[in-house]
């Protein structure tokens, strides 16, 4: 009988994801693992998980990984990729990690056009610490540190990181996806695969933003959380390709890096 479904080789053999029911992390993990399998690069992949819910990603991915301090993933990934340009390097970051405490590292890695990929999990909230307001929390969205809802005057506005980074000449490919439906998961997979392929071809910095449901902290059922992404969240963070201007065939050494 033909096997039509199995666990990706790039995920470890025996484990149960610790993520909450309905969380987007486990879907994103699986999608990334499938792509690594399909590209045949498990043996040369190095991942950089963040501080946050996904800090234990190395318990799931069966690829080399080094955990970074909160927000420092792009700096660590820069160090790795410059020393091992032949490897597929990705950092995996949440919205607090990337858009708040690690904004400088993210911005400047993008601006240098570092030839690695960031998987940016945007769930509009600090998940691991219990649902505090994130830089991406929507206006009027309730969180434990914006109990009446985010107030622009007191708390500022939700940040559209992908659009900001797309303005930098150093970035090659940026797309916003979501994993709230099978069709969107397929699109997400296509985007990440394209980003990884660009990297392997030495075509520069890529970032895939994934709007990811967090039913626990949004205080919704998993189905309502998926609907909320369609109905509310994607109005603030529109789905689609934001930038696709890969550096021209810079070769595997990185996008024009004078090493």
């Amino acid at each position, binding site marked *: 009988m033909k096997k039509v479904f199995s666990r990706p080789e790039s995920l470890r053999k025996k484990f149960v994801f610790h993520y909450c029911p309905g969380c987007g992390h486990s879907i994103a993990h699986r999608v990334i693992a499938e792509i690594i399998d399909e590209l045949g690069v498990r043996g*040369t992949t190095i991942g*950089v998980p963040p501080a946050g819910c996904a800090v234990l990603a190395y318990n799931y991915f069966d690829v080399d*990984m*080094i955990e970074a301090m909160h927000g420092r993933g792009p700096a*660590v990934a*820069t*160090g790795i990729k410059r020393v*091992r340009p032949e490897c597929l390097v990705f950092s995996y970051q949440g919205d607090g990690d990337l858009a708040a405490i690690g904004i400088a590292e993210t911005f400047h890695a993008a601006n240098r056009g570092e030839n690695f990929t960031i998987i940016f999990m945007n769930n509009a909230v600090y998940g691991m610490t219990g649902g505090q307001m994130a830089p991406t929390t929507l206006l009027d969205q309730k969180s434990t540190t914006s109990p009446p809802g985010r107030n622009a005057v007191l708390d500022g506005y939700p940040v559209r990181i992908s659009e900001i980074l797309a303005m930098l000449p150093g970035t090659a490919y940026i797309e916003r996806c979501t994993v709230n439906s099978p069709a969107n998961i397929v699109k997400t997979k296509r985007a990440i695969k394209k980003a990884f392929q660009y990297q392997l071809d030495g075509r520069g910095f890529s970032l895939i933003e994934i709007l990811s449901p967090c039913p626990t902290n949004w205080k919704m059922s998993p189905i309502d959380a998926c609907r909320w992404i369609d109905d509310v969240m994607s109005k603030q963070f529109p789905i689609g390709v934001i930038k696709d201007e890969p550096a021209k065939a810079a070769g595997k050494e990185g996008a024009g890096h*004078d*090493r």
Partner: protein
Amino acid sequence: MQGNRIIGEAAIRAGCRFYAGYPITPQNEIPEYMAENLRKVEGGVFIQSESEIAAINMVAGAASAGARAMTSSSGPGISLKQEGISSMAAQELPGVIVNMMRGGPGLGNIRPSQGDYFQATRGGGHGDYRTIVLAPGTCQELADLTMDAFDLADRYRIPVVLLADGMIGQMMEPVVFKEPKPRQYSADYVLKGAGTGKAKTIKGLILDPLDMEEHNWKLDRKYRVIAAKETRCEIFNTDEADIVVVAYGTAARVAKGAIKRLGDHGIKAGLFRPISLWPFPTEELRRLAGTRKEFFVFEMSTGQMLEDVRLALQGYADIAFHGRPGGVVPTPVELANVIVRQYRRDR
């Protein structure tokens, strides 16, 4: 050659192939030297990072990928690096961090100082850890200790701090670069992709307290080995000495100048100069206290190493102290006068 540039050259000769740093006086010649010369070397990477925090984390990444990596800064920037140094200590990553100390706290000033002794020798960041701390006193030692720092970092998989100050960084002396030792390290932690084998992870997050405790004890066992094997010091002129001056780095140079003048006052003085600040050469200093009873600690701070001297001598000898914090480098004459006054008062 100028001190800061010597560090850069010695690092490259020692096989450093990754440098990330951020400008801050008085160490700017290090990144400048690396920008000019490291990129010329096969596989050499220089990055002017967006911050000190990014620089140390880039170093961590490069170290995890197997490169000999270095960053450099001065006081305020070293404070920013502490998060990354703590993480590297936890993850047992090798790396070299240069601190050309300046006056502090806060922004302080850019003059030579020794106010970062506590920060360097007590770990500096959060958690139960140590870093090896080497304190060069001459430009020749800058070259030698920079090379040794990489060897020690590899041998013990530990961040090594080279602790000097703006004066040594700016001054020039002739220097001879020694032949670097071939790199010896166990590369089993290095990330390069799992190949066909098992995936490796480098981590510092250990949620189970008993496991975390064991990790702490494991680090502690390593630190005990280092403390037993890696102390370094210079003992100068102590055989006939009535008084032993204890000083390191730039302060030790001033002290040596003062000691030569003390002879004119009829005082025989010697010098005990710790070269490794952590581990502190406690035993070596204690041995001196077997026959000498008067010790005089001189630092360009309000008295930090003084505590380690007290711990070493444990009341078996008299300890006087003279400090000039804030970026002041006293002259040998001034120090000699202070020691003379102190000595005569005690008589």
